[in-house]
């Protein structure tokens, strides 16, 4: 779809501004209604296991060390040390300068996602952002989670955002690119829709809600709008783009609600770690405890899951 939409900067703006609006109350209502689906027994077992396999197990702290990343990776490979039937997660997600450590620990068993482009703020020159990306990829990251320039987006400089995404995608080489919209800063669902389309037509493999570093991260209505966007993009392009909901998803119950959103919005085809991910850290333990309860019949406790 090179060169689409036509008309350069003005064409891009006209396209994005011409997308249908989102009624916020209606979208919130739809997300809430889907949240009342009752997922029990076999469906719950399936959903918990699928959720585990969709987790990008994350540590993105200033105080991360080699030791911390090693512990995270061990957990990613074998989330439940007492139960080998438990699936491993989809990826570990770390800062670019620790991507090499992560890759050494996990081998090829799970993906290594690195955040780059001056995560989380995105406030740096393009040169710096591209170098950040290239270093992470050569250290062993096979997925890159970039942030868009929200300042440019909110001031209407869509071309700048577009060109940055394209450039980062090129710097990724074979690595697959997730574009973080930072929906908490975009604030309106109209902006979320526009940013989703902008990222997709610029070459994103995944669109991601948040950095997890601001007050409002992933929410059901925001994810709903992003799922509608990937569904609609597939209709016009034939390409399926993935969605990652990151930050603020803490319980298995929440995760299952997101899977319901995926199923009833984009469709069953998106229910795979190749097209849907959870960016989370504490979520995994709650999923594991739910899994244990479903298998053993009694409620589990924090001593039965590991702290990594």
């Amino acid at each position, binding site marked *: 779809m090179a060169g689409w939409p036509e008309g350069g900067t003005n064409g891009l703006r006209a396209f994005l501004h011409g997308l249908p609006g989102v009624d916020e109350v*209606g979208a919130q209502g739809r997300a809430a209604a889907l949240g009342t689906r009752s997922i*029990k027994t076999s469906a719950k077992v399936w959903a918990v296991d699928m959720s585990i396999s969709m987790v990008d197990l994350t540590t993105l702290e200033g105080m991360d060390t080699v030791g911390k990343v090693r512990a995270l990776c061990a957990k990613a490979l074998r989330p439940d040390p007492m139960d080998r039937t438990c699936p491993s997660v989809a990826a570990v997600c770390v800062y670019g300068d620790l991507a090499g450590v992560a890759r050494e620990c996990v081998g090829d068993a799970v993906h290594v996602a690195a955040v780059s482009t001056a995560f989380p703020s995105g406030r740096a020159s393009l040169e710096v952002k591209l170098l950040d990306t290239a270093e992470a990829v050569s250290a062993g990251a096979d997925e890159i989670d970039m942030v868009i320039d929200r300042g440019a987006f909110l001031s209407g400089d869509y071309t700048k955002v577009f060109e940055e995404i394209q450039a980062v995608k090129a710097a990724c080489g074979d690595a697959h690119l997730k574009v973080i919209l930072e929906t908490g800063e975009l604030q309106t669902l109209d902006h979320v829709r526009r940013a989703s389309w902008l990222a997709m037509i610029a070459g994103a493999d995944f669109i991601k809600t948040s950095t997890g570093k601001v007050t409002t991260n992933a929410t059901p209505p925001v994810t709903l709008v992003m799922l509608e966007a990937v569904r609609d993009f597939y209709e016009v392009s034939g390409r399926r783009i993935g969605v990652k909901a990151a930050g603020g998803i803490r319980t298995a119950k929440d995760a299952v609600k997101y899977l319901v959103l995926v199923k009833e919005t984009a469709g069953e085809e998106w229910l795979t770690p190749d097209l849907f991910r959870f960016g989370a850290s504490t979520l995994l333990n709650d999923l594991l405890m739910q899994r244990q309860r479903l298998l053993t019949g009694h409620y589990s406790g924090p001593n039965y899951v590991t702290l990594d």
Partner: protein
Amino acid sequence: MTFDYAPAPESRAVVDIASHYGLFIGGQFVDAASGDALKTVNPATEEVLAEVSVAGAADVDAAVLAARRAFDEVWGGMPGRDRAKYLYRIARIIQERSRELAVLETLDNGKPIKESRDVDIPLAAAHFFYHAGWADKLGYAGYGSNPKPLGVAGQVIPWNFPLLMLAWKIAPALACGNTVVLKPAETTPLTALAFAEICQQAGLPDGVVNILTGAGETGRLLVEHSGIDKVAFTGSTEVGRQIMRAVAGTSKRLTLELGGKGANIVFDDAPIDQAVEGIVNGIYFNQGHVCCAGSRLLVQETIADTLIASLKRRLGTLRLGDPLDKNTDIGAINSAAQLGRIMDLARSGDDEGAERWTAPCALPDRGWWFPPTVFTGVSQAHRIAREEIFGPVLSVLTFRTPDEAVEKANNTPYGLSAGIWTEKGSRILWMADRLRDGVIWANTFNRFDPTSPFGGYKESGFGREGGVAGLGAYLSAEEGR
């Protein structure tokens, strides 16, 4: 592997259904004088749920007498502050027993449990809360400084929202100081009978509320009874006409809430995904058994094809089946008779040249079911564009301009509801100003609230329920209707 939702049934055990119920007269349950009874059935399974009494002339006499006595001796003169407290108690008990009432409603009516649980029962409680607060403030409602009740109200309600329709009738009547005799629909008596128990639990004085179960004849006897001061009816336009003829020349006050053929109008700048939800909600919520259903989709021609395609995709995710399953979206049709009417009208759609599309879903073997259906290529002259189907059948017409949309929307003897979907605020207000409907939803649909008046223009009836406007039906300050 796919994400199939496992069965998630709500438990029936939370409700106790007796095998036989009497009438509720003067605070007690008594069998009909004649001993007549009818059976009420679960429309999803055709299983008999219970036998209820059929009130005859003698029973209607007794109930009206009990209501009159309660009015004269207890309720009519009771300070509003005290009436309020009884109504608050009732509201609270409905909340406390909400799970049980939701299951009972679903069993008797066929509607999905998530609707009884999330819509019917909470709104019923809210109606009692809201009106409880008016009981001691009627002087502020704009009906004079000391408006008086009318006396005894005879109320007849339909089967589509049994407990909610009961709340819409009883709460304002009692708040204003009237006593009532209410006849629930023939096919859905059980939550009204549970409500009678709730009145007992609340310590409501005997005779303030009386519940007479029965069929059309019981309703006729009640409406025509010379001992009542007010008639309130919600149901079909045909029966509304009969009632209006019956009270002509008497001094009985009357309000009617009848049928509709609501137009859901979608402009090309509508928020499309939410408009699709609004269309689905408009006609498939409650299996389309909604007087204010958006049963006509008026879509701007510029986006008709894409909107219909999105709509059909969305209809593919609707889950039809066991109403007690928490994941069911579309429940059973309330009776074989109603199913027959829906099928007849749908057939007329085929015969008259409209194109039928049905959502793919398996229908259970027992019970009465109709899958969500869309007719495109419909014109104003088709029966399916003019007559109320009262089922999950949407008729799609197109328009080019706002003026044309208004003309088509108004071109019906009905005037209950309309929906407007556009991002343009001025257009919403311009359209709302011109649409001849009592309830207009903009960028939403099927929103109800006890503070918000509901009722129709033209043959959809007269009078309003809810809000300040709704109090007028039960107070003597208003002359005329």
